[in-house]
């Protein structure tokens, strides 16, 4: 009776080892598959990775932005910019840009803006441009080709780059003042290098009047960092799965060695080696499958938890991982069951039964 209890305990510990190993393997594989998508989203905060400009400095067609949106189909954000050099009331030149603030907010999240304009004739003024156009934060006027516009500053933008020297207006204000149409569209497309190349080609075909350029520094940097992170994760995954498999082998071998009496009795009662092998293999396979399924569920939750904690977004369960984990678990269990059996096979049942 006590022996049976103990044996059940050992079977349970083997199952536990199996489940933990499968859980860790599932979590790691799931993360490995998903980390690329998660990090790509982080990298989209770098802003545009594709830029469209009118060929030879010309404006883009009026429907260019909607055509870009059609190509993107939700796989990114795009914003159009129109730029001119205007004069301040005391005749100093300043670059004025017209754009859609809602889109820019999504596209360029690194912009440090204290207050986005919401009404017409409100401008977003670069921190370096502010002392030039509106030193005391009073309403100011700008002139372009003899036409005046009265503006108030809604807030300032700081980026540490060219934006700091510019004044941003909403596109309707800008166009009614200057009659200049957007000449640049910045696109932050989400996807792998191949997908982004495909998007670029599709945009090129949709808008033949535009020159489409990749922002190479962003694309190349992203590819490098992602590649290295995935490689590190792959190395970690391999190491962890190896240790987990070792844990299973150690536990299972102990379990099988423990049952050498059953083995000997069966053999003494006339069971063939093949039958015995089959019996132990079936048991191990059942254990492996059960452990893999429990571990898979556990591992998915671990991966989801890591996703929530680290990326603030759940890691999507990849059911494509399940067959891999299942096959791996059964292979490891079979291996660790067959190995001790093969060792025991050579031994006479009488020797085992005598406890030697």
């Amino acid at each position, binding site marked *: 009776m006590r022996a049976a209890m103990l044996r059940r305990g050992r079977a349970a510990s083997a199952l536990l080892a199996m489940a933990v190993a499968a859980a860790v393997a599932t979590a790691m594989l799931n*993360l490995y598959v998903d980390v690329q998508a998660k990090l790509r989203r*982080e*990298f989209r905060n770098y802003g545009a990775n594709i830029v469209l400009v009118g060929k030879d400095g010309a404006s883009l067609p009026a429907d260019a932005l909607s055509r870009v949106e059609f190509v993107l189909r939700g796989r990114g954000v795009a914003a159009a910019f129109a730029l001119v050099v205007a004069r301040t009331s005391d005749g100093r*030149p300043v670059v004025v840009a017209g754009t859609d603030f809602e889109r820019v907010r999504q596209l360029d999240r690194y912009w440090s803006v204290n207050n986005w304009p919401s009404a017409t004739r409100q401008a977003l003024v670069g921190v370096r441009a502010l002392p030039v156009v509106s030193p005391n934060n009073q309403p100011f006027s700008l002139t372009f080709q003899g036409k005046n516009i009265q503006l108030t500053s809604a807030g300032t933008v700081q980026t540490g780059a060219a934006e700091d*020297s510019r004044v941003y207006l909403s596109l309707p204000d800008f166009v009614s003042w200057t009659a200049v149409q957007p000449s640049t569209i910045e696109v932050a497309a989400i996807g792998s290098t191949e997908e982004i190349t495909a998007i670029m080609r599709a945009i090129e075909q949709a808008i033949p009047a535009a020159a489409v350029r990749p922002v190479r520094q962003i694309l190349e940097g992203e590819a490098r960092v992602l590649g290295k992170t995935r490689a590190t994760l792959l190395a970690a995954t391999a190491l962890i799965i190896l240790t987990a498999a070792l844990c299973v082998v150690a536990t299972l071998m102990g379990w099988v060695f423990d049952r050498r009496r059953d083995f000997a009795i069966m053999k003494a009662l006339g069971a063939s080696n093949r039958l015995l092998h089959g019996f132990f293999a079936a048991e191990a396979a059942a254990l492996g499958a059960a452990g893999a399924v429990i571990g898979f569920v556990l591992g998915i939750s671990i991966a989801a938890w890591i996703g929530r904690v680290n990326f603030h977004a759940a890691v999507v369960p990849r059911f494509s991982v399940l067959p891999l984990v299942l096959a791996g678990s059964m292979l490891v269990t079979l291996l660790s069951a067959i190995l001790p059996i093969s060792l025991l096979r050579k031994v006479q049942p009488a020797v085992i039964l005598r406890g030697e």
Partner: protein
Amino acid sequence: MFARLVYESFRRQKRRKLLAGAAITLGVTVATAMIAVATDIGDKINRELRTIGANLVVTPQEDTLDVEIGGINLKPPSDGAFLNETDLPKIKGTFWHNNITGFAPMLPVNVTLEREGREDNITLLGTYFAKQISFGKEKFTTGVRSTYPWWKVSGMWPEDASRDILLGERLATALSAKAGDELTLSGRPLRVSGILSTGGAEDDQVVAPIALAQQILGKPGAVRRVYVSALTKPEDALARRDPKGMSGAIYDRWYCSPYPQSIAFQLQEAIPNSHAEQIRQVAQNEGAVLTRIEGLVFLVTLAALVASALAVSAAMATSIFERRAEVGLMKVLGAGKLGVASVFFAEAALLALIGGFVGFVAGGLLAHQIGRSIFNLQITIAPVLLPVILAVAVMVTFAGSAVAIRKAVSLDPVHALRGEV
């Protein structure tokens, strides 16, 4: 007697000891390698992120507005203030000089290109390519070749002391010029050493050694702005505070942390009449990406540690469970529970120490290999970690053995010896 028991156990049960020892060694190897990778990953990814370009920019304090659209500078060339080139080596004299991986000064000037009787206005950008600079006794090489690794040149990079230039890709196509051609820019005959492709505004420009741009402008030593590439720490609440309002101790902590803000502040101190600022597109996102990757590797390391602790425990439990008969014999011969347990624990400790040491060395090698093959950089493990790792190995081995040892010593020797359990 005690020592002999342990010694004989190792001598006579080589197979079992080898199995348990192998499990401990492998567990410690994985744990050590993962800890080494996790502690170093931030630095390594930080270096990779530097390939996105400079994260700090130094401009003259009293500068006029930039008037630039699509890389074409519309500001009068002599307008505004300049930095002095001779001040630049001082960048390497700042507190965080080891974190500064490179810098490149920029001086855009407008030039006229005379070709087949036509005159075109184009921008010539003066910069360092790979310039030898010395500060004190320290010598270093810096320039766009290290700060902008995505700049690709077909042909040769110009020497910094030469009169060779790079022609932007689109400009070269428009002029149908190629490497080796001679061009006349603002009356100066220059040789095109290569065609530059950047994917940015430089594709429409000429890039030349900065001395050449200074000559054309007629202002020796003038620099419009300096782009600095620095390894920084993700910013936190302290980083965003204004250094002026800080008390002494907090100021010191802020100053001695490699935040983008504090490195910018030190650059401003080093270069007279300058204003240094982070380029938010690069600096801000860097912090976010770095935090995510570090967090991920930290959690994965945790998983690796749990997995290796479990493997060690499982191996120890198995190896002790197999020796019930031995326990029974000891007890029959009069050994107390404590005596038996202490023999097992001593064995476990010895195994853990040997396995831990071998595992530490192997883990260090593994981490080194991972660093070399993935990052092309060294990942080394601090020898200080050895005692910590050994202590953890002993603790995990004890924890793994404890349940099995307790079970083994509480068995009835009669049953154990008859092999009934």
